[in-house]
C-alpha cells in the first residue's frame, strides 16, 4: 500500500489494532463459539513469510468463467493480473487503488456493520491488517452483464486479508465471484476475509465465494450484507477446501421489499471442520430472507451451523426462512445445528429447521439396480443433494463454475 492512503483509513487501522489487542481470545464456553474447535485459532505455525511463486503459472491456473466481465488475480493480496470489459461508469479496481482514487466512496461503505457472530477480534485484525481486495461500485441504473471473477491465491505460510467491497446504486445489478485457493497443496496459510456487500434501492447483487484452499490452510470469512428497499442480495458460499473454516454471514434487511438469499454448500471430508454462523436481521418491515445451507459430510469431518433470524420491533410482515440440511456419509462425521428465532414484531412468517440424514439402503439399491456401483451411486446422490442450493444461483455459468469445484472435491473423496 502506498503512503497516500487516506487519513480516515490509517486511523481506523490503528484503532482496529488496539481493538484487536484488547478483545480477549474466544473461549470454549463462549456461546458464539459453541462446538467450535478453538485450537484452530492458534496461528503460531504461520510465522513464515509468504513467497511469491511464478505469476505466469498462477495466472494460467486462474480459470473460471469462459467470458467474465472482469477478472482479477491476486497473489498474497497483490494484484498480478487484471482485465475488464466493464462499462466506463463502473468502478472496479483493487481496494488499494480505490483507497487512493475514491477514498470518500470507500469510506462510505467500508466495514459499517458491527460484527455480531463472535469474530469481533478477527474482524478487528482484518481491519488493522487489510491491504487489498476488490472494490466494485455500480452506479444507478447500470446492469453488468456477466460476472466479475476474482482469484485469490495464497502461497507458503502466508496470511492474507482479502476484502471485497461491493456497492450498487439504485436499480443497478452485478455478480461477483471470489475464488480462494492455495498455490500449493502443502503450505499452511491463513485467510481472514471480509465481504462488505451493500445493495442500493431496487438493485441486485449476487456474491459467490468459492473456498477451495489446500487442506492444511484455515479461513475466517466475515460477510456483511445490507439490502435496501426493493433490492435483492444473494450470497453463496462453497466450502470444499481448508482444514478449518469459519464463515460468519450477516444479512441486514433495511427496507420494505428487500430480499436476501443466503446459500451455502459445504463438502468436508477427512478431518475438515466448517463452522457456520448466520444472522438474518430484519430491521425493516415487509422484507424477505431465505437461508439454505447444505452440508455433505464424509470421513471424520465436522460442521457447526448456528443461525439466528432476528425480527426487530417494527419489522412487521416479515417473511424469513432458515434451513440447514446435513447429509451424513459416514458414521464418524459430526453435524451440529443450532437454529434460532427472535421475533419482536407482529404478522410475521418465520420458520427454521435443521435435519441430518444418511442415504438409505433403498436409495442406493435403486441406483445399483441400474448398474451404477455403490461408490458412484453415493456420490451421485451426494452431488444431487447440493444441487437445489446451487440452482438457486439462477445463472447457468455461475452454477457450472460452482459445480466444477464440487465435482473436483468429489473426485478426491474415495
Amino acid at each position, binding site marked *: 500500500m502506498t503512503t497516500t492512503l487516506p487519513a480516515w483509513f490509517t486511523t481506523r487501522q490503528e484503532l482496529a489494532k488496539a481493538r484487536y489487542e484488547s478483545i480477549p481470545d474466544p473461549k470454549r464456553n463462549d456461546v458464539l463459539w459453541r462446538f467450535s474447535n478453538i485450537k484452530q485459532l492458534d496461528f503460531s505455525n504461520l510465522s513464515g513469510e509468504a513467497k511469491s511463486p511464478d505469476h505466469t503459472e498462477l495466472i494460467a491456473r486462474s480459470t473460471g468463467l469462459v467470458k467474465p466481465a472482469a477478472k482479477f488475480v491476486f497473489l498474497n493480496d497483490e494484484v498480478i493480473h487484471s482485465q475488464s470489459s466493464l462499462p466506463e461508469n463502473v468502478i472496479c479496481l483493487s481496494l488499494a487503488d480505490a483507497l487512493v482514487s475514491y477514498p470518500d466512496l470507500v469510506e462510505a461503505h467500508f466495514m459499517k456493520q458491527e460484527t455480531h457472530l463472535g469474530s469481533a477480534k478477527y474482524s478487528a485484525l482484518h481491519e488493522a491488517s487489510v491491504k487489498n481486495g476488490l472494490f466494485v461500485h455500480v452506479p444507478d441504473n447500470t446492469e453488468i452483464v456477466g460476472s466479475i471473477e476474482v482469484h485469490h491465491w495464497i502461497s507458503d505460510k502466508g496470511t492474507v486479508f482479502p476484502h471485497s467491497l461491493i456497492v450498487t446504486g439504485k436499480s443497478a445489478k452485478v455478480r461477483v465471484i471470489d475464488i480462494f485457493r492455495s498455490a500449493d497443496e502443502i503450505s499452511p496459510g491463513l485467510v481472514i476475509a471480509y465481504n462488505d456487500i451493500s445493495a442500493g434501492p431496487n438493485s441486485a447483487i449476487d456474491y459467490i465465494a468459492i473456498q477451495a484452499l489446500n487442506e492444511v490452510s484455515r479461513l475466517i470469512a466475515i460477510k456483511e450484507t445490507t439490502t435496501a428497499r426493493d433490492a435483492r442480495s444473494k450470497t453463496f458460499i462453497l466450502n470444499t477446501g481448508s482444514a478449518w473454516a469459519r464463515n460468519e454471514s450477516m444479512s441486514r434487511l433495511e427496507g420494505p421489499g428487500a430480499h436476501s438469499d443466503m446459500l451455502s454448500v459445504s463438502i468436508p471430508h477427512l478431518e475438515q471442520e466448517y463452522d457456520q454462523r448466520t444472522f438474518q436481521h430484519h430491521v425493516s418491515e415487509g422484507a424477505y430472507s431465505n437461508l439454505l445451507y447444505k452440508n455433505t459430510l464424509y470421513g471424520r469431518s465436522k460442521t457447526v451451523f448456528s443461525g439466528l433470524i432476528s425480527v426487530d420491533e417494527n419489522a412487521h410482515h416479515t417473511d424469513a426462512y432458515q434451513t440447514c440440511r446435513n447429509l451424513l456419509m459416514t458414521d464418524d462425521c459430526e453435524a451440529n445445528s443450532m437454529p434460532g428465532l427472535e421475533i419482536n414484531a407482529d404478522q410475521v412468517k418465520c420458520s427454521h429447521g435443521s435435519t441430518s440424514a444418511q442415504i438409505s439402503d433403498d436409495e442406493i439399491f435403486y441406483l445399483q*439396480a*441400474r448398474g451404477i456401483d455403490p461408490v458412484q451411486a453415493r456420490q*451421485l446422490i451426494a452431488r*444431487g443433494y447440493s444441487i437445489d442450493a446451487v440452482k438457486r444461483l439462477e445463472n447457468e455459468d455461475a452454477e457450472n463454475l460452482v459445480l466444477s469445484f464440487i465435482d473436483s472435491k468429489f473426485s478426491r473423496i474415495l
Partner: protein
Amino acid sequence: MSLQITNLHATLENGTEILKGVTLEIPAGEIHAIMGPNGSGKSTLSKVIAGHEAYIPTAGSITLDGQDISEMSIDARSRAGIFLAFQYPNEVPGVSNANFIRAALQARLPKGEEIDAVAYYKHLYAQMDLLEMDRKFTARAVNEGFSGGEKKRNEILQMIMLEPKYCILDETDSGLDIDALKIVAKGVNAMRSPKRGMLLITHYQRLLDYIKPDHVHVMAEGYIVKSGGPELALELEEKGYDFLKEPAFA
C-alpha cells in the same frame, strides 16, 4: 438362453422365510406373468433376483444365460442384463433424468470409453417420444415430484434405454389410469424381442390385456402354486385367489 431360478429360498434378516423354494424359467423371447395375493412373495422374488441385500438367499440358484449370478452385487447383476422396474421408484433429488440414465449407460462401458452425447440425446428423445414423455423430463430430477404414472413411465424409459436381457416389472400397472397403462404397455411391447425375456408381476388381469404373456404363474405363500397359459389369468380374474385354497392347491 434363459433366466433360470431354481429352488430359491430367501429370508428376511430376522429369519422369516419369504421365498420357500421358487423354481421358474423365463426363456429369452417369452413373457411370463406372476400373479398372486398380497404377501405371497412376488415383490420379494423380484428383489432377490435383483440382489437386494435385505433378503438373504438361503438356498437355490439364479442363472442368467447359464451364468450363476447369485453371488453378484446388485450393480453387477444389472450390468449383466437384469432390469427391475420398481413398484415404488425412488426419487433421486438433484440428479437429472438425463444424467441418471447416462451414468447407468456409462457404467456399462469399458473404462476410458465415453458416451457420445449427441447420439445419446437423440436416442433418449426418440424413446421419450414413444412413451409420450415431455422433453422437460430430461432436466427434471429423477422421479422427484413425478405423479405415480410418470414414475412408472420413467421406469420403462430407463428399461428401454438400458436394453436389458431380462426385464422384471414389479406391479408396473399399479396406480396407472387406462391411458397411462396403454402408453406403458406400448413401451414394454416395443421391448419384446426373441433375445429378451420378461417377467411381469401384477395383481390384475387388466395389464395382461395390453401385454400378452406366454405363461402365467400363480404365487402364494412363497411358492409358485400353479402355472399355465394366458387363460390362467382370466380364471383368476373370474374366481379370485380363493380358488387357490381349493384342495388341489392346499
